[in-house]
């Protein structure tokens, strides 16, 4: 293949990447991989208990780009905020708290995992919302990635699904939201609430087994080709 055709391949792949990324269905995975360490999911009421997280940002001219995340591996709840997301003329405290699920059921499925309340308050205790032009990124860990869950927001009376991306490691999912509040991952479909077992995702044994199988296939192919190449010489 000539270099010119190689450039054509690159061009086609960039178009494909753009289209796939733009029109990725809800819950699709990221392009990035890496080594994922995922401890069992910690359920509210279980032991060990899921961890809350809080961070206070001292008075500043501009609220800094920042993240607040719970202490599990991977974090079960995270919020990422861009610069100037909140009015930082007084100290701002951002808090993530696992809370009991409200009695209202989501319209699009069943809650799996914990419900997390994301809040921000100023020094006088007044609730803050993100600047209208700067939605926050909310990342929650679910229990499974297939079928892909959505993240829903509870506004105090009902749940609403939000366009959700798969954030990768340990069944983590991501949304952007212009509002704080209560969020949970929701498994699509109706029916009784699913039990909330510890752990989640693809068993490590299946991953290791799959990789080992692929490695064996690669070894066989490589050595077969090498032998044929040697015989042809």
């Amino acid at each position, binding site marked *: 293949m000539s270099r010119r055709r*190689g450039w054509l391949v690159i061009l086609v792949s960039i178009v494909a990447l753009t289209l796939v990324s733009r029109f990725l269905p809800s819950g699709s995975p990221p392009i*990035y991989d890496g080594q994922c360490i995922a401890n069992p999911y910690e359920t509210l009421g279980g032991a060990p208990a899921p961890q809350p997280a809080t961070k206070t940002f001292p008075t500043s001219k501009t609220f800094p780009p920042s993240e607040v995340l719970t202490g599990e591996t991977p974090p079960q709840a995270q919020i990422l905020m861009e610069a100037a997301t909140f009015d930082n003329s007084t100290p701002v405290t951002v808090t993530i708290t696992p809370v009991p699920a409200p009695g209202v059921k989501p319209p699009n499925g069943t809650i799996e995992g914990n419900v997390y309340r994301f809040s921000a308050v100023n020094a006088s205790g007044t609730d803050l919302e993100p600047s209208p032009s700067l939605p926050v990124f909310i990342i929650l860990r679910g229990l499974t*990635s297939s079928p892909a869950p959505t993240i829903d927001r509870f506004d105090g009376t009902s749940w609403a699904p939000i366009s959700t991306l798969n954030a990768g490691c340990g069944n983590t999912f991501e949304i952007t939201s212009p509002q704080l509040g209560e969020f949970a991952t929701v498994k699509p479909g109706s029916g009784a609430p699913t039990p909330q077992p510890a752990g989640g995702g693809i068993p490590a044994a299946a991953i290791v087994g799959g990789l080992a199988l692929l490695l064996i296939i690669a070894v066989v192919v490589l050595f077969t080709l090498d032998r044929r190449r040697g015989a042809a010489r």
Partner: protein
Amino acid sequence: MPAGVVFAIALLAVASAAGWRPGRPGLMAVGLGAAGGGALIAAWLLSRGSFGIHVASLNAGLALWTPVVALVAVAEEVAIRGALFTMLADRYGDGGALVATTLLFAAIHVPLYGVGSLPLDLAAGLLLGGLRVVSRGVLAPAIAHVIADLAGGWLL
């Protein structure tokens, strides 16, 4: 994390046993790799619907994660678009090698990310394969792959 190191070493051993040896690095390959990594990051930002990013603060987990992820990415490139691509290209030409390695690249990500990862990883594999064809070596796709993978941990 240790499983990643073992996996990477196994891939490098297989590539070495198959006769793969590193070529001489060139500036063009470095530039191509950096541009390819940029394209992969741009696609990720597009999928997020926001181009607002910031760099994660350094912590012990990220400090350990970074070299392991880089090692795995390089090992995948050496094995797939180094040793395997060269052997397949000898027999089936660059086109056949490109198709086979792109399919394999997408397949090895299924155990971790599920079948839904196939479209994106096929496109990413095609881009990395294109870099391999244009640069005639593994350095450009390896740089692009490392940049893209590290972005997943360092850019928020």
